């Protein structure tokens, strides 16, 4: 069937970035037999903070926000995830409840594999474990950088850094600049850099006035990445 073929791991457009990228035909067919593929609509919750994990979520297509609600009830975005990324791995392996929630930012196709299968697959194919470790290491690096930026950088620098990072992950080259192909509200951007949405609006206006970025509705275009790098005080 067409839909089955579309959701076959062999044909997955995110296969090269996924944790099963090294598997051969036979092993991939085991993954196919055990996985559950679902499309989550924009706004649907994939898992909730505080609930127990039952398996691993592999994103085939789409975009997800991972959010954490603090003691004050405020929600902040911990990270964004897209095709090839996995979700729920930390809770799964630490046997802790989810420390954050995952919500679809757009229609998103996700494959779920239960814990028992994942553990057996890792035992049989250590490359899967290596790929998960690699992803975790990258996430830890990003979390450390974010945490350091909160103390060492001002809002202007943090926003510039975030825009560059979003451009790197979601950027699409267009004639008018690098289009950041993800729609985030000002509140979501504010929660990612630890500031108020009013400050984000003001700083975005400054960047626009300086000709560094432009906006078309919720879509942001990076017009001058060099200038943003200068503001962000980093080098990629």
């Amino acid at each position: 069937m067409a839909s089955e073929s579309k959701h076959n791991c062999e044909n997955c457009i995110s296969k090269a970035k996924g944790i099963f990228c090294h598997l051969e035909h036979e092993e991939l067919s085991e993954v196919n037999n055990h996985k559950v593929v679902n499309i989550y609509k924009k706004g649907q919750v994939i898992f909730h903070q505080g609930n127990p994990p039952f398996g691993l979520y592999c994103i085939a297509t789409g975009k997800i926000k991972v959010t954490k609600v603090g003691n004050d009830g405020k929600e902040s975005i911990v990270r964004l995830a897209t095709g090839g990324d996995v979700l729920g791995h930390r809770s799964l392996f630490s046997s802790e409840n989810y420390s954050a929630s995952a919500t679809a930012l757009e229609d998103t196709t996700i494959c779920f594999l239960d814990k028992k299968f994942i553990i057996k697959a890792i035992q049989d194919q250590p490359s899967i474990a290596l790929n998960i470790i690699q992803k975790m290491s990258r996430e830890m690096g990003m979390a450390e950088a974010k945490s350091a930026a909160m103390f060492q950088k001002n809002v202007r620098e943090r926003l510039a850094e975030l825009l560059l990072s979003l451009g790197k992950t979601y950027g699409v080259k267009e004639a008018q600049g690098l289009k950041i192909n993800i729609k985030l509200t000002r509140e979501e951007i504010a929660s990612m850099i630890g500031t108020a949405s009013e400050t984000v609006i003001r700083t975005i206006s400054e960047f626009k006035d300086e000709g560094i970025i432009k906006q078309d509705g919720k879509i942001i275009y990076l017009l001058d990445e060099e200038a943003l790098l200068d503001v962000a005080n980093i080098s990629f």
Partner: protein
Amino acid sequence: MIKNVKRLSSFEVENLKKCFSSTSFEQSFILTYEGQIPTIGFVLLRGTIELLKKNKIVMVIPPGFLLGAHQLIKNEVTEFSYRLVSPSEILVLQKSTILQILQDRGSEIYSIFSH
């Protein structure tokens, strides 16, 4: 009776408990959305589950019912959203274990999943 929602005898529930572990949920939670394939099958041990269609409650399920397992095995979407409405305890039925039970055939709980 609603399709794919199966009342289990206490004997069957006790046998399932030997193969699967249970988990407590402290808050209301949607286990499966209408139109999706469940990621787990489950038996409610404590609490209540609401079956919703287009956000309207179709049925309230008490403990002792098997839900989602058939769709999980067959990769079929559910007609309803399954929402936990109170602190609940569910028996979590993982697909790998169900497939193993169906493959081995000898288990006492084989017949629960084979129909």
